[in-house]
């Protein structure tokens, strides 16, 4: 199996999807000949033609609106938003339209063929507008699915599932590890199930939950903790909406402790949802308060990005605090 990075895995998923189904169309800013600012759509226009892979004008609301219509017609639309920070002009089309399309029509029409891909997250000195993690906004929107891979293998399998899923999916790609994260990825066409979390390492003392680039911080923290004799169970959520509460609850019932970590600001972030659900489901098992290790409640900073971001040291400290509560 070839070793490729997360970005190449995304490209491979798109290539695989377009090859397998001629209804798949990719569109977005600079994704044509240029292959996208990160090169995720590299060579797709060359291979599948301008009709199926093309540059759009700079209008995120137009890109998503167009893609909804295209999907409603029966095509499979894979739209790229250049940075997740620029997804907000399309918020109305996503939240009021895509998410409610099937419901409001009584299932006469749907835009399930829609997938929106977008690079997200910090760690690249991008400041306010090249670093945001807006996943929680979409997780509060029934009708959407929200998927975030953390490895190259997941990226391909989850993206293929997202493209073929009968509901609209927002697919966030952790750009900080686009090139850093490489692994064995089959050439073949394979899918990973949406809505299923992955227990990446088992443990007994505490559960750590995260997604995307944050998984690497959790792994590193877990390793540090292991040296202190603390056994961590690490869970990669993979799909945030609908999220796999059963897997997390099962783990917390066993460990009695939970830390959730994400880059987005704390208040209203998705860790709150997980904490609220788990304290309800595992009330009698919890031995210490559920802890959230997150970005601060500020816009994403530049110079103090490292201080702002949740990292393995912050998680490690939280693990100790939780275990010694």
């Amino acid at each position, binding site marked *: 199996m070839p070793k490729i990075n997360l970005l190449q895995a995304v490209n491979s998923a798109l290539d695989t999807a377009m090859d397998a189904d001629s209804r798949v169309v990719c569109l977005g800013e600079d994704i044509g000949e240029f292959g996208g600012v990160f090169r995720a759509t590299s060579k797709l226009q060359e291979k599948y033609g301008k009709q199926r892979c093309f540059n759009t004008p700079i209008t995120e609301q137009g890109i998503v609106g167009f893609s909804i219509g295209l999907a409603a017609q029966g095509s499979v639309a894979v739209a790229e938003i250049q940075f997740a920070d620029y997804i907000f002009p399309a918020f109305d089309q996503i939240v009021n339209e895509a998410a409610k399309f099937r419901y409001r029509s009584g299932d006469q029409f749907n835009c399930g063929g829609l997938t929106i891909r977008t690079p997200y997250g910090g760690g690249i000195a991008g400041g306010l507008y090249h670093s945001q993690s807006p996943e929680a906004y979409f997780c509060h929107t029934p009708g959407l699915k929200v998927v975030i891979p953390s490895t190259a293998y997941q990226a391909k399998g989850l993206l293929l599932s997202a493209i073929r899923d009968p*509901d609209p999916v927002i697919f966030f790609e952790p750009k900080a590890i686009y090139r850093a994260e490489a692994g064995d990825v089959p050439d073949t066409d394979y899918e990973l199930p949406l809505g299923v979390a992955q227990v990446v390492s088992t443990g007994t003392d505490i559960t750590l939950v995260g997604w995307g680039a944050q998984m690497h911080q959790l792994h590193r923290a877990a390793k540090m903790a292991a040296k202190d004799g603390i056994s961590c169970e690490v869970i990669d959520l993979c799909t945030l909406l609908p999220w796999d509460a059963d897997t997390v609850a099962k783990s917390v019932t066993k460990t009695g402790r939970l830390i959730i970590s994400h880059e987005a600001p704390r208040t209203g972030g998705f860790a709150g949802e997980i904490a609220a659900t788990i304290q309800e489901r595992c009330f009698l098992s919890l031995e210490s308060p559920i802890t959230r290790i997150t970005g601060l409640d500020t816009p994403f900073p530049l110079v103090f990005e490292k201080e702002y971001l949740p990292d393995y040291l912050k998680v490690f400290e939280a693990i100790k605090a939780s275990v010694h509560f």
Partner: protein
Amino acid sequence: MVDKNLVTSVLKFTEAKDMPISTLSLLNADGEILEGAQEPKIDKHTALKIYRDMNYIRVLDERMIGAQRQGRLSFYVTCTGEEASVVGSVAAFSSQDMVMSQYREHAALRYRGFTSKQFMNQLLSNDLDLGKGRQMPIHYGSRDLNYMTISSTLATQIPQAAGYAYGQKLSGNDTCTICYFGEGAASEGDFHAGLNIAAVSKCPVVFVVRNNGYAISTPTVEQFVGDGIAPRGVGYGIPAIRVDGNDILAVHAASVEARNLAIEKSTPVIVETMSYRLGAHSTSDDPTSYRTSEEEEMWRQKDPIERMKKWLLGKGWWSDQQDHQMKDEYKKEILGALKSQEKRQPPVLDHLISDVYQIPPAHLREQYSELLAHIDKYPDHYLPNPTKGHDSYHKPAAQFS
């Protein structure tokens, strides 16, 4: 193509008046072809279908306004005054073409074959409502009739129509999309997004803009400074035409050509119909506070239905007697449908959670089970009772727009 190399050394600003746009008119107020104009080809069968459907909608609107006042509906919106803009345009399209509309174009849905009972099912949110009782009255949709379900959010259908049409082009079946919206909705960012992306990706979509003078209380002078919507086509590189929206022949002839252009050249086209919203914005609105009855009266004189009737009578295709009979029949049919469909059950409770996703996910099924258990504890308190009415079911809306 535009000559992009024009050069001048005279400093001069281009203004709106440098781009005069004429209004296509074919019929005069008496239903006669204007001097110098040529009568467009339109067969008797089509002409009569158009005329009948315009009348049907007029009757439906009158009756439903009444029904709303009686508390039998929560909300209603009329097409009154704009029937020619809507029926004249949709009649130029194939039934395989997709219609993506705003909310004041139910006349197009009628033209496609929506029945009185189907209208009632939606308006009453009963068990046969194709939308499963989820949207307010007038948010129709029909997969069978290629009529996209309406959403209240203005202008969102515009970029969607571009995408839909692009898909039609890819599938190569010579269909296109007709997309309706009002001159008010044309101020939304989605208008710009949709028109530009349609032009760049060469989508076979005809945008029919109903310029009816108002957006709720806001007159066009507070909506834009330019000369309406058609001149914007120049900026997008989209062919545009303005027509007298109360002149059925002008609307229809322009729409026939618009569809031809759209399909043959794979291009978006703009048709701006100049008309007037004769009624209130909706049953929540009272227009007396923002416009004069003189203005309304002036436009009532231009009634598109009357004008078409005169033309039909002149051609000998129609008689006054047929006219009376038709109206009576429609009245009866509509009131009968109202009566029969309001006796029906509401949709089943499952439809509260179905169709959020293709398959309800676990957390939603769980929420639903909890709800069922709760309802079991208070059976009298919940669930719409189709005979007695539900607290919120059919309750006249406070205010909508």
